[in-house]
């Protein structure tokens, strides 16, 4: 009891101290902040970790801010629960602190539309999404179908080749963390279509981890797929992709990777990486924002032709990992894609 009283006293003192500090904080808040001409909110619909596009989005904005003194950036990671995205975005927008909200997710336009209705002055610029006709919003859709197409083509070349770990089965694999519309409608069909341009008999083995972090499950899946005859893999699996890299190295299988340079993740086994120029796009967008030349209300599709999707040809691993004949065929195909010579119909999202 006596011991208890002492404890209570100590704690009450702590309580007082902390509440004083809170009020003190209230007063320090009044310190005048810099005159800001552009304040950007980068709204990450998920977490940056394990997501190259989100990381590039944030880094692009931060690098731009570093280069331009009058630009400030706040990065906010909203987490995976899409039901909470709107509420959090509303809270952020409600502060009125941000001139423009930058995001990258196909579902953001509808959320921003609703938030924007409450805050008519707020502007939104969203990549990886498509929505025209809203005067508060500007969207850029990466042509992920296209990237999957040429990565699929490369996978097709590899699986039909006589490379060391390529087998006779005409089977390629795709491991995804979870299913979502862009994946189901653009990436997976594009990947298969590209491979079938090499050989129409190629089959796709598509499997789901169930979450973005169970790398061991991804490894088990990859292992099982390998047994089933898969020799080239693609993965949209966040942190779980780590399991694929492991299996590829240990059991011998090739990987083509979307959106980022991952040759080093499994040296010798990652044979090709598609690039997505998110950072470049973000910087260009911000230049436009500063200049006041953003065409709100319009939507663009950006792909290889426009120079926002590409391939990491210049990494030495590319030349080291692939035989010359495959590279020649692939580079020719890539040139055709960039020239718009490859015919395909972009499925509706």
């Amino acid at each position, binding site marked *: 009891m006596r011991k*208890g009283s002492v404890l209570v006293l100590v704690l009450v003192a702590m309580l007082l101290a902390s509440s004083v500090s*809170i009020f003190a904080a209230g007063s320090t*808040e009044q310190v005048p902040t810099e005159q800001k001409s552009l304040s950007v909110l980068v709204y990450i619909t998920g977490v940056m970790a394990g997501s190259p596009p989100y990381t590039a989005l944030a880094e692009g904005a931060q690098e731009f801010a570093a280069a331009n003194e009058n630009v400030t950036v706040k990065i906010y990671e909203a987490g995976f*629960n899409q039901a909470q995205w709107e509420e959090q975005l509303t*809270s952020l927008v409600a502060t009125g602190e941000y001139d423009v909200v930058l995001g990258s997710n196909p579902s953001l*336009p509808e959320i921003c539309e609703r938030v924007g209705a409450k805050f008519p002055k707020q502007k939104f610029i969203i990549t990886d999404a498509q929505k025209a006709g809203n005067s508060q919003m500007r969207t850029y859709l990466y042509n992920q179908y296209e990237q999957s197409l040429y990565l699929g083509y490369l996978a097709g070349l590899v699986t039909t080749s006589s490379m060391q770990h390529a087998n006779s089965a005409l089977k390629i694999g795709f491991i995804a963390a979870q299913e979502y519309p862009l994946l189901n409608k653009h990436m997976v069909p594009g990947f298969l279509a590209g491979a079938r341009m090499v050989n129409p008999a190629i089959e796709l083995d598509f499997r789901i981890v169930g979450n973005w972090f169970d790398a061991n499950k991804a490894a088990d899946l990859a292992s099982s797929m390998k047994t089933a005859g898969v020799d080239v893999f693609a993965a949209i699996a966040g942190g779980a992709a780590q399991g694929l890299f492991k299996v590829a190295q240990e059991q011998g299988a090739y990987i083509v990777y979307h959106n980022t340079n991952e040759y080093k993740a499994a040296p010798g086994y990652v044979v090709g990486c598609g690039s997505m120029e998110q950072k470049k796009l973000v910087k260009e967008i911000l230049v436009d924002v500063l200049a006041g030349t953003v065409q709100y209300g319009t939507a663009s599709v950006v792909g290889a032709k426009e120079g926002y999707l590409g391939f990491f040809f210049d990494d030495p691993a590319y030349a080291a990992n692939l035989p010359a004949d495959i590279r020649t065929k692939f580079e020719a195909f890539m040139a055709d894609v960039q020239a718009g010579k490859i015919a395909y119909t972009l499925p509706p999202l």
Partner: protein
Amino acid sequence: MVDRMEKRRVTIVATLRNSIGAVVIVGIALAALVVLSLLLSETPMKTLRYFFLGPVQNTYYFGNMLNMAIPLIFGGLGVSLAMRSGSFNLGGEGQLYSGAFVATISALALARWGSAGVVVALLLGTCTGGLLAALSGVLRMKWNTSELITSFLVSNAVVLVVSYLIAGPFMDPATNLIATRMIPESFRFTRILEPSNLSSALFAAVIAVLVVHLYLYKTKSGYELRLFGLNPRFAAYGGIRTKWYQVWPMFLSGAFYGLGGGMAIFGTYYACMKEFSTGMGWNGLAVALIARHRPGAVIPAALFFAYIESGARNAMLHSDVTFEIASIVQSVVFFLVTSAVLQKIGSVQRRSV
């Protein structure tokens, strides 16, 4: 007369002294937060201010905090009922999710029914949650399978199935969110604290607390349920249908989860999004345990929980605190919140039950 005044004074003093424990817990949590902020935040003062004052700084945050408490209240009530009967329901996640899903698709199917449709849709969602939980109750009754584990397993499987249904057959083709179509306007609860998300579902939650309280303490069935929970052998001996009370409270528990899920959709989200309820089931359980299975205490426990949660979120929104730091702070609170030793500090006498 004097005697009565004296009695009241003693009661007040006792109440005050008994609440010292709660103050101690809040104090330690605060202290932990201060320390953590100093360690992990670049702007600790700002962090603290948003953590503590954020949820109450304007109607928007305050309303959202109250709104967050609604499914917690329903879940907390459900778990309390199960625990009072000696059952443990670990399947809240799946029950809430499936309840929300069924309520949503029912609302979509019954779009023309108007307000009658609201009741039917919520009822269907409620029953879905209830039946899922009742399954575990039946397994326990028939073969003594641990309902704690089966409810957990059923829930895990159901979450995946519901997610499939949302992403597959029931997905709204017009949206890029993985979600069902939006429920009709006529099914949505009125917002009561614009611009926040708080809806009239709050009243339903408060009424539910009242109903559960009355049910437990004033009805024959509640009496039987409590006795079964306190001593199943005594209940059997007294002629109480023990088989029923292995199933019924589980049903109620799941039903409240399901209703909470439906309320979240009809009051806040308007469409059932994939995995929107992640964590709500567990939080409901935590609320029930903090409230020590007393329905009346579920409201303050849920508010406390929502306050901590939205304080953390506020600090994340407005200072440099990340989700992870917020969860560390929350964990410190949970380490201490049920401590009997801390709660007893200063208390006048030991209470029974």
